[in-house]
């Protein structure tokens, strides 16, 4: 009987190990880091108002350009860190058939606008408001910052999760201009709204 109990112990130990491996390999993944199903798919269309509400912008109007769609908010530290790189990239690539679109995420447009007054804007970037987060949901945003790259045909070909630096942004645009599909890159952490 003692021998039988020992085997039961071995069996339980092995079962625990197997369960641990399964949990560690599949179910322990951060769902925000999975590959975006949008890559290789047509970019979700949007028509959004500018932060000042004076105009609306549709993605279809930008067809033919490489479009960089970035979701940001004033309460997001990583967004503040990446902002100078986004501005510099937009200033550099803006005149060459690349349009940067920054979409305020889960905050009032006046809050996004006040933050941009503080940290600076690019003359080539479109700054938009996303009522009800419909566009963020359509792009499968888990947290911010997240940046999507859309090729001139309107297909999502790249995504950066976390703080994007000018080198990664530029290299992604370079690859798209060469006709490549850069895919997804995780460069840092993302944030959710503090009260989430």
């Amino acid at each position: 009987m003692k021998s039988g109990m020992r085997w039961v112990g071995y069996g339980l130990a092995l079962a625990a190990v197997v369960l641990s491996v399964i949990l560690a390999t599949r179910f322990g993944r951060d769902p925000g880091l999975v590959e975006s199903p949008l890559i290789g798919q047509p970019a979700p269309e949007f028509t959004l108002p500018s932060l000042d509400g004076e105009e609306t912008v549709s993605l279809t109007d930008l067809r033919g350009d490489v479009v960089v769609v970035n979701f940001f908010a004033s309460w997001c530290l990583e967004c503040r860190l990446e902002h100078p790189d986004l501005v510099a990239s937009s200033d550099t690539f803006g005149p060459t058939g690349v349009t940067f679109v920054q979409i305020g995420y889960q905050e009032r447009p006046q809050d996004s606008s006040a933050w941009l007054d503080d940290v600076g804007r690019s003359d080539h970037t479109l700054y938009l408001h996303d009522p009800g987060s419909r566009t963020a949901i359509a792009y499968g945003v888990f947290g911010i910052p997240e940046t999507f790259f859309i090729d001139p045909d309107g297909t999502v070909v790249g995504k950066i999760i976390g703080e994007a630096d000018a080198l990664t942004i530029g290299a992604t645009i370079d690859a798209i201009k060469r006709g490549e599909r850069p895919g997804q890159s995780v460069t840092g952490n993302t944030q959710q709204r503090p009260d989430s």
Partner: protein
Amino acid sequence: MSERTRNLIYGGLIVALIAVVGFLIATNPTEADRVSRLGASIMCPVCQGEAIIHSPSEMAREMMDLIEERVGQGATDQQIIDELTASYGQGILLDPPVSGPTLILWLAPAIALVAGIGVIVWWRRHPSDPADPTAAPAGRTRTAVTALILIGSAAAVLVAVTSFLQDRDETALGVADLQVEDLDEVSNQTLEAVIAANLDHPQISGMRLALADRYREEGDYRSAFPHYFAVVESETSDAGQRVAALAGLAWITWDGNGEADTALGLLDRALEIQPGSVPVRFLEGRILHCSGQSDRSERVLSDLLQEPSLTVEWKQIVSDELAAVEAREVCA
């Protein structure tokens, strides 16, 4: 009709009525029912394993609003689920799909049940020896546990293989990490953006110099000039970077504008920083040659050729240039 029969009929009618009402409710849910059911089946993307209907986060609330709007517009449950999974992937479903790699999750309980029944049946068909009640159970237990271990191991292997195949599928879609490994593949515009975003970075002079050299080699002197100039002026540039930038400025001043004296002045500044610099002295000799000052060029190159630290490669380059000067060849 007896009272007992009447009671049975009434009871049967009540049960039937309840069943009909229940069926009608189940098959004709209200819009609110559908919204609630869908909300309970979608995981909140900013929470940990919580349905959006139960999450207090703003994102979950906005997703519930979206579902409500879609239901009101007449979308089917499947259309709404397809819309959300197209954005977030199947992982947003609290109940994984009964197909593909996640099929194993649905089959696992049935497999475990069948395996358990099998073990019990085997156990009962191999009864212990009643004459020896103490010895047999250990043997049977060992066999049963061995069977369970084998079943568990097989399940683990199955999950591992499924996981592997799923990863391969994702890779086959072309989704791969973007890595900037080779700066040669990075465009001038990208380097411009990196520099513009990092003007105060102490190591930015190296990137400016690399970009300016690229522009110079491409013959775009107008774009090279501000970067060479910035490297010369920057307090964070080291001596080697300043000398290289002055040499670059000297060459584009001569080759671009034909201003030999200004170019030679810039090279003098470079030699004040790094006296004896071989590239600078060679460039001085070359600009003198190209500007028709062959005698001075000959002296500079001859002196440089006597330099004991000259490498074999530089010795060859200087000798070739000196031979061209001595032959009074036109500067190429």
